[in-house]
């Protein structure tokens, strides 16, 4: 009897403990305001999957399209898909939205089990890694059927859309880091230009002089610059500065990390100077909120924050290119692109439809620009439809010197690593030299794991 009881107990224990394994990773990551793929306002982004509303008509080829866009970005993309479905006589696109934090995991899992969608959104910086593992279809041959002229894309995007001379994605946008200013405050400070813009003078000392002047004039409880001190934003700022000071994360062939360098230490110490001088006070949890809530007179945030600021009642703001600290123009950027994931069950008809859709989308990115992003094609950037949108043309020219991460495998690991190291440095847990050394060591390990 005693023995039986023990056995029972053990079984029960085993079952209980096994749940640990099965239910391990089930957390949800809240949408931080600095995640480019979506709109900041949504804190509880339930997995929304929306079918396009156009009625399915007979004879149309049905294709599926996955994206990580929620909130405002998702609404705009849904409207674009609906518009396409209404116009196309041959193709019907079924649009699916996933939570951004689990998007790439879902996509990878789908590709490995041959249930990938016909086409999907991917950041340009992820392409190389997927191509290396044979997860994406090349597009060049297919692109000739719809007469895609790759030179219509901006120069940066022409480069990032190909791996070793073969195109694997069609870019929708350039999205990049900006600086946004509260117009009312800058008018009071006497720093608003006649044309309603704010011009931060070029150069490191000039930048600090400008913002120290602002800091000294502000009432207690207010701050010159806001910007979330963890997750994406510190990394966007860091990579902007690193490249302005002439550095980069690794060498040209992507095998050796170059982060324990003078350039990186310079970039990191400029960040710490901003923190220590209380121009950008440390440990901010929600930079966008500090700006819309009138605590900060200016904010560091991406172009994706523009719709949120536009939707804030009583906020008069202007969005400008990120200030330049050196003579070398540069700003952190990435691109939302469309790719064809590998799927054994995909038919040629579906491929043709996917290409028709991608071509249409890249020609209509003035709609996508409502989300704050800069269109991928020069002609669209120069179109009246885009120029008539407020703010956008003030910062569109920074797309010319936009700098994405180099084409390497392991950008996801690099992102995670820099989130962690930068947040620890800004919180005062480690100094500039330690941070640079840690970054070098950890990023080298990531690179090595892909270059075995």
């Amino acid at each position, binding site marked *: 009897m005693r023995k039986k009881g023990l056995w029972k107990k053990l079984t029960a*224990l085993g079952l209980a403990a096994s749940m640990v394994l099965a239910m391990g990773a089930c*957390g*949800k990551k809240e949408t931080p305001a600095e995640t480019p793929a979506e709109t900041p306002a949504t804190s509880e982004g339930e997995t929304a999957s929306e079918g396009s509303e156009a009625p399915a008509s007979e004879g149309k080829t049905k294709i599926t399209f996955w994206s990580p866009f929620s909130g405002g970005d998702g609404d705009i993309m849904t409207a674009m898909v609906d518009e396409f479905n209404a116009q196309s006589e041959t193709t019907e696109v079924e649009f699916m939205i996933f939570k951004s934090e689990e998007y790439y995991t879902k996509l990878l899992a789908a590709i490995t089990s041959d249930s990938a969608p016909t086409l999907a959104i991917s950041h340009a910086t992820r392409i190389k890694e997927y191509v290396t593992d044979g997860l994406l279809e090349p597009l060049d041959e297919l692109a000739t059927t719809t007469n895609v002229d790759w030179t219509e894309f901006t120069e940066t995007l022409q480069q990032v859309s190909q791996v070793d001379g073969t195109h694997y994605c069609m870019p929708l946008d350039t999205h990049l880091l900006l600086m946004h200013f509260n117009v009312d405050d800058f008018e009071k400070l006497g720093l608003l230009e006649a044309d309603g813009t704010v011009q931060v003078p070029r150069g490191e000392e000039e930048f600090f002089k400008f913002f120290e002047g602002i800091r000294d004039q502000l009432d207690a409880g207010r701050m010159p610059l806001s910007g979330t001190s963890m997750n994406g934003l510190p990394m966007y700022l860091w990579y902007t500065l690193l490249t302005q000071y002439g550095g980069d994360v690794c060498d040209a062939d992507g095998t050796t990390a170059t982060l324990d360098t003078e350039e990186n230490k310079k970039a990191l110490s400029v960040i710490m100077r901003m923190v220590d001088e209380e121009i950008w006070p440390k440990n901010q949890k*929600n930079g966008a909120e500090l700006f819309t809530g009138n*605590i900060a007179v200016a904010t560091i945030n991406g172009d994706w924050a523009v719709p949120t600021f536009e939707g804030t009642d009583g906020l008069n703001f202007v969005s400008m290119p990120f200030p330049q600290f050196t003579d070398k123009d540069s700003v952190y950027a990435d691109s939302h692109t469309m790719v064809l994931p590998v799927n054994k069950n995909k038919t040629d008809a579906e491929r043709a439809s996917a290409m028709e859709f991608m071509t249409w989308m890249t020609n209509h990115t003035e709609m996508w620009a409502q989300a704050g992003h800069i269109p991928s094609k020069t002609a669209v950037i120069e179109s009246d439809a885009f120029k008539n949108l407020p703010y956008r043309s003030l910062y569109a020219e920074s797309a010319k010197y936009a700098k994405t991460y180099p084409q390497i495998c392991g950008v996801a690991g690099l992102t995670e690593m820099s989130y962690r190291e930068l947040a620890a440095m800004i919180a005062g*847990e480690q100094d500039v030299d330690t941070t640079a050394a840690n970054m070098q060591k950890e990023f080298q390990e*990531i690179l090595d794991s892909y270059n075995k």
Partner: protein
Amino acid sequence: MQMAMGKEKRQRAIKKNLVAWCFLLPFLYFFVNFLLYPILKGIHLSLYDSTLGGSQSFARLSNYIAMFQDKNFWNSMFNTLFFVVISTPTIVLVGFIFAMFINSKLKGTIFIRACLFSPYVLSMSVVTGLWIFIFQPYTGLVTQMTAKLGVGEMYWLNTKWLVWLAILITTVWWTVGFNMVLFLAGLQDIPDEIYEAARIDGANSRQILFRITIPMLKDTITLVILLQTIASFKLFGQTYLMAGGGPGTHTKTIVHYIYETGFTNRKMGYAAALSFAFFVVVFLVTLLQNKLLGSKEE
């Protein structure tokens, strides 16, 4: 005669078993397919050098060897154990105190019970969103209160050790209701006659608590501690969302590390090895706990 009886008995037993199996089958189907198979598959995967969506090759025990030399593994395991040690007693004790209070049948306890239980139904992102709002610097509720007291900015979510306190408070607020309800059910199972008899015999309330209530709640306490320990081991959402595992890796838990290894860096084989090691640790701790708490019974 005897043989016929034996046969009948066996038939009855088979029939009885058959019915039992019919009830068990639907559960077993899901258990085997969605729990047992993935676990075995995970153990199998842990012997491979496997990239999510990429190549896979047999690696013997190299994942396990790498794990023992991995500073991040030990660090995140320590962080997880630290949380188990601080959170389990706190949540069990607070749950017990709340249950005792509500069981006292004072006026308004139904309302208070609802208040205490309601956070449990909220999702992780809502709970952490709310507490970030309370703890965040510059505009947070706590900051505004401490500012009135003349204490400066404390950066609750960015300061070593203080961040654990913030996470503990959040977790207690979120999950204590569940333990409270379990304790409450246990308390209500204790017959009133025993209390009555004790009071007639002149026992004071302290004696009643330690000699009657707690011994009678033995099974419930064991269950609550077991469930709470496992829940604490699985900590991920609160630290991930409120502190990003930081500052640095100060609040990075083992589940966070497994998630990062598997889904950010796509090293599925290594992540499977970490998961299995985690499973072994939880299994051993629960076994030990059961032994310690169960032995007093006899």
